[in-house]
């Protein structure tokens, strides 16, 4: 479903992604892992068009993402939950959720009830400004906001950062459920092994801007973890 080939990316004159290749199968949950600063976030931003790439190809389904302007990418069914949440601080929770409505392909202009079922706290705080929420609440809002887009592909960058344990579980359940019931393809950047193992089906290990190991989650051995994730 998603195929990334030979991507090179630079911040100014420093190269962050080096000839990076990555495949994600349709309907899978793929977990991208790697130490701090190896370029996970950078990769996702390139995929979303928030960073320009120097060369390489990005394909999602039949669409050539490298050619598609960033604003059109959500429209083709890719939703993104950024690291650090990036909620709109001065918009209310409701407004934060409504932002994505314009990009829904089914033209429904209502916030789906599902979001509130998953994160009831959002319903309680509809008229509070996004920036006023606690860190964890913001994270929930960011995920909810992505779900409003009714995506086929969901990209999550460390979605559990700062989330209370029972909700972490719940997020895991949600991801699994969406994947199972709606065939949602999920790309998940995650540092916490336990969560990655529970939710992920595939893993990709990154180092210095390249994918250095990949496979089914069962194959993620302690040896691999030690080699690529330990400091």
């Amino acid at each position: 479903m998603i195929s990334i080939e030979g991507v090179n990316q630079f911040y100014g004159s420093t190269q962050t992604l080096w000839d990076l290749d990555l495949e994600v199968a349709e309907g899978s949950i793929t977990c991208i892992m790697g130490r701090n600063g190896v370029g996970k976030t950078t990769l996702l931003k390139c995929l979303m068009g928030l960073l320009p790439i120097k060369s390489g190809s990005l394909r999602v389904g039949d669409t050539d993402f490298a050619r598609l302007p960033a604003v059109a990418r959500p429209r083709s069914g890719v939703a993104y939950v950024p690291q650090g949440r990036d909620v709109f601080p001065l918009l209310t929770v409701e407004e934060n959720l409504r932002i994505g409505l314009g990009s829904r392909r089914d033209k429904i202009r209502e916030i789906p009830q599902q979001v509130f079922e998953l994160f009831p706290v959002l319903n309680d705080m509809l008229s509070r400004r996004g920036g006023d929420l606690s860190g964890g609440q913001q994270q929930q809002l960011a995920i909810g906001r992505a779900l409003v887009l009714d995506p086929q592909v969901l990209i999550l960058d460390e979605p559990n950062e700062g989330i209370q344990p029972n909700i972490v579980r719940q997020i895991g359940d949600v991801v699994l459920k969406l994947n199972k019931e709606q065939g949602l393809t999920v790309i998940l950047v995650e540092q916490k092994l336990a969560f990655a193992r529970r939710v992920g089906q595939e893993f990709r290990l990154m180092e210095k801007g390249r994918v250095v190991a990949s496979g089914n989650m069962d194959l993620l051995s302690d040896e691999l973890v030690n080699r690529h994730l330990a400091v």
Partner: protein
Amino acid sequence: MNKLPIHYFLSLVIAVFGVVYSQQSAAESSTPNPSVTLAELSEPLVGANLRKMPALVERLELEAGTTALPVLEALLAGELYYQRSDKRLVRAVSQTEGGFQISDVFSTDALGSVAKKQIRKVKLNNALRVQLRAAIGRLTLLSDDPKLRLTAIENMLKKPDQANLELLQQARAQETDSDIVDLLNEALALNLLIAATDRQPRLQALRELEGSLQPAVRNALQALVALDADAQPLEQDIVVFTSASRLLDKIDGKLGFYAFLETLFFGLSLGSVLLLIATGLAITFGVMGVINMAHGELIMLGAYTTYVVQLLMPNHIEYSLLVAVPAAFLVSGLVGILIERSVIRFLHGRPLETLLATFGVSLILQQAVRSIFSPLNRQVATPEWMSGSLEINSIFSLTYNRLYVFLFALLVFVLLQLILKRTTLGLNVRAVSQNRSMAKAMGVKTDWVDAMTFGLGSGVAGLAGVALSQLTNVGPNLGQAYIIDSFMVVVFGGVGNLWGTLVAGLSLGVFTKFLEPATGAVMAKILVLVFIVLFIQKRPRGLFPQQGRAAE
């Protein structure tokens, strides 16, 4: 109220006094002298020098009576000319395409058009106009047209003159229209008050003048209560003196009240101008965060659009503003979009630099206007319905242009609120300004939103320009004159809050106008600025601040 008996009594008293005081005027009363024709009477007007004119006009009034009206009116209107060739008096009206349309003054027969060289104007000046208006007033006091009568009486009321007394009485006897009767009574009572020496009639007159706000009445009363050098009343009759001063107090109380209303209106109207010029900026600067130094020039473009619209429809000035409003919105809006697409969009994330670039843009726009329209101010006509004022009473009136601008400002504000609240544009633009890349990642067409929003803000600036064209100069400096004020209003109200802009604009206007009488215009402005600076210390984010964790 026992007004009716008083009326009767008054008429009686006036009748008695009238006889005495109107003797000499009765002698020269306007019975036209049929032996001399109007044409003959008018003939000396040709080529007369200004010093001779008053006597000529007086003769016309006295000897030709109402038949002289066409001549007098033409003269008053500045349309009385004579042909150089045959010294014939004509009425000449200038034509838009040059030259004059002439007609016979007496018969009103059209005589075709002539060049300016062929005719010469009958001299006229201010003093003569005053005389003419009074004369026409006297001649039309008994006219069939109630409007004319009303104007005539109002005129006489402004300048009480014993010579008019008999005329007024005569009119009073014939008058049926109750409004005019009231006014006539007022005029008669005033004359009586000034003329009479006995206590009773004077008290009656005072009673009759109760509630009158005519400046002439107040002046008469003030004369009555004047004190001499030893602070003793000049007026001998102490009863008259006290009731006059009581009445004066009452009138002054009312005057004070109306003065307050008037100041309030002035303040709101200044405030609405501030609101209008700031509303557009509240969007481009307040919401988008562009420090738009070219805002003033976008206002200016709106004003020039009004000018061009009037050039294009010279015969429909009355409707020109209705066309100018959408046109100015479009012109300024499109220029705004152009600015956004060509300059601002390269400056995302560098809000301070927008100041520099838009400053450059403002210089370019100013010079462009100077090159295209010349550096001179352009003349924008005021439609009839925007001129003059709505008279609430004889001392309180609201000027139409200000009134309409006030309403217009509110209308624009409300429409804008609707657009921002009811369409997704309002939501999207806030999202974009808070986190551009995340908005993109949510599929918001940031480019489009930027262009539309900037266009909207600029378009509203254009609307302000239309309004300003009715209040002030339309010239290349127009924008400069308003840019500082508009920033001040937006910031005072709280950046990003449209309601704040509304409250800030109106309250600063009112505040200024209440200060002005005490301090003078300059000091008021300085004080307002100092006030804003101090106020911001108390509320560092304006009247209506953005609150919450993220705003810090």
